[in-house]
């Protein structure tokens, strides 16, 4: 069992857990992920490591409540435990010779972007970042990003904070203005990474993306997370999750992510039903207490 030491609500439906996982924390590096399972009968889901502290033995993960498992996860509180927390998985990213890097993070993607930029910042690399979300209240990790960036651009789709528009608009502007980078790291929904990689392509700037396909084991054993990179089959769990954004077949990735859409709906509806039942029971219970 792995204990949740701390829980934060970062935004509506986006939550952060600090997990007690000393062995994982000791080996974790930027770019790696964990697989977790809430309880017996639960599914295994991958989550990118958003931060870690080897001394305290903690690993931070950030997740958005979209499906059954993430919603159920969201109902847990600090002090609760989950059954399985496996990692660190995937290949760590390294940038030994970079001098200037641009990080682009959209939505939940800001969380996995953060440890990479933090490492670069600590290495003395000049870090420029663009982060964005749908609305101001959905924006996460702004302070953390500020702390590791030499320059930070904030965007919202609705203009409720920072620049009005997508992060890719700022990305395009910076490149059009002739700003150069040794590497651009783009993390967010697949469509954002696809568009972002297309923007950087004509400039020939190396562009790293981090992929989140469906996984089961996370150790190279099932091949469910396979993606086409430069026409070759790669397993995101052991060959990635970071890849050359100019070579990834994003259309295929997006299709494959939809494999279990129907099942996800069934699962979620069932969860809501049982969850609402519990809530109703609790309310009833409270009422009967009041009567006494």
């Amino acid at each position, binding site marked *: 069992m792995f204990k949740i030491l701390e829980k934060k609500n970062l935004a509506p439906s986006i939550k952060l857990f600090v997990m007690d996982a000393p*062995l994982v924390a000791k080996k974790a590096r930027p770019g790696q992920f964990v697989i977790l399972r809430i309880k017996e009968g*639960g599914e295994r889901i991958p989550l990118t490591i958003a931060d870690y502290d080897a001394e305290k033995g903690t690993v931070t993960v950030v997740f958005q409540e979209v499906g059954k498992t993430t919603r159920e996860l969201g109902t847990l509180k600090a002090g609760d435990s989950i*059954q399985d927390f*496996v990692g660190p998985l995937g290949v760590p990213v390294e940038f030994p010779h970079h001098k200037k890097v641009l990080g682009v993070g959209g939505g939940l993607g800001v969380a996995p972007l953060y440890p990479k930029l933090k490492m670069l910042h600590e290495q003395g690399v000049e870090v420029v970042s663009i982060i964005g979300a749908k609305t101001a209240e959905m924006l996460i990790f702004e302070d953390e990003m500020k702390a590791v960036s030499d320059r930070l651009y904030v965007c919202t789709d609705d203009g409720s904070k920072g620049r009005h528009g997508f992060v890719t608009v700022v990305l395009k502007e910076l490149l059009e203005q002739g700003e150069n980078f040794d590497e651009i790291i783009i993390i967010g929904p697949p469509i954002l990474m696809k568009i972002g990689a297309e923007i950087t392509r004509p400039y020939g700037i190396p562009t790293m993306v981090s992929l989140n396909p469906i996984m089961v*084991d996370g150790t190279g*054993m*099932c091949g469910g997370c396979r993606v086409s990179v430069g026409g070759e*089959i790669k397993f995101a769990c052991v060959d990635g999750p970071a890849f050359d954004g100019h070579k990834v077949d994003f259309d295929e990735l997006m299709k494959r992510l939809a494999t279990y859409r129907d*099942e996800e709906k069934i*699962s979620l509806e069932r969860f809501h039903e049982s969850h609402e039942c519990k809530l109703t029971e609790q309310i009833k219970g409270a009422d009967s207490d009041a009567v006494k």
Partner: protein
Amino acid sequence: MPLNKSKKKTPMPAQKPEVRRRNFNEVALGYTEEDAVNEAQRCLQCKKPGCVQGCPVQVQIPQFIKRIAERDFDGAIKVIKETNSLPAVCGRVCPQEEQCEQRCVVGKMGDPVGIGRLERFAADWERAKGVQVPELPAKLGRKVAVIGSGPASLTCAGDLAKLGYDVTVFEAFHKPGGVLVYGIPEFRLPKAIVQEEVEFIKKLGVEVKTDMVMGKVLTVDDLFDMGYEAVFIGTGAGLPKFMGIPGENYLGVYSANEFLTRINLMKAYSFPETDTPIKVGKKVAVVGGGNVAMDSARSALRMGADEVHIVYRRSEEEMPARQEEFENAKEEGIIFDFLTNPVRIIGDEKGWVKGMECIRMELGEPDASGRRRPVPVKGSEFTMDVDTVVIAIGTGPNPLLINASKGLELTKHGYIAADENGKTSREGVWAGGDIVTGAATVILAMGAGKKAARSIHEYLQSKR
């Protein structure tokens, strides 16, 4: 002891094909005491038993069969367990027809003695009454690490624990058992049996740690730093192979590993009671001709497919699957397309599989494996109308641990090079099972785990 001169094996009760094809319960139901005694009486008690030589762990077969014939079932299981620590598993999944039973003298004039069935009977008889933990020697206070928890690892761990070592098993998944839990389906090997075997080695004092992806969370070096004096690697051959044909990434194409893991380990057949889904369509093609292909096809049927094909590029004769599994699959209605090879998978606009183009094959000259090489028949392409494809053409070594371990010599195919006792090129490190041999059988893996345990014991004895 009366001799039963029947030329036929005493039949084993089984679920009827038309029933079992839609449920995940065990197919074969096992012998009753009367069946077992009856079958045991077919054994001639050869002075020089060929069967024992055919057994990778040299179970004293005539001895245990004699005890069954005498109704000394307790004695029978004791004999088996002297050399085989997982008899309930082996009695179910060993390819006896290529091993012990192949060399049975009775088999020359009819069916061989049903050694596997008798082994299973003895093991189940013991399970039913509760397995006794043997008396253990005093602890030696010396630590050995075992990586993986499949048949090689469980055997190695159990044998070392019986010698007094402090053994820790490190398993990557959330449940121990390796291929016995993620690969072999419930209807061939009930998971409760694997669970019992794991509980048994725990009772021997073995500590089992799950969620430990070795090579990532800990390396072999870390283990030595933590005070382990020897390491056994039994991580199996878990990397799925794909065909390298167009369309393999369409939705509805699974590696057999993923297909079986979702069903067996993650219990997708109970979805939405359990959370892991699987998509099994109406018409399924399984590519390959081994036991894993049979398991995948029969699982697809049980998941509700209307029609399941096994597409194999050679002919029935070359098929590596066990005869029994082939028969079972046929009885259940699996359709076999021999001498057929996929050329490409066809998808619809949303990326779902809607067909598979295949080409007919014919057998040419023998290849390196001694089997006749299948060659395509020009112009014989045709399209199979399928919505799910499972690729069961074999597995390779998972490089996760190997890449993170210094000083391990590998074979040219990327498996760990080890001598006949499982000793690797690195001092203090042994390896055995599929990670050394490539995908093979449960019993061979167990044999390797056993030899390694003996060799580790000798090494640690001489070290101090």
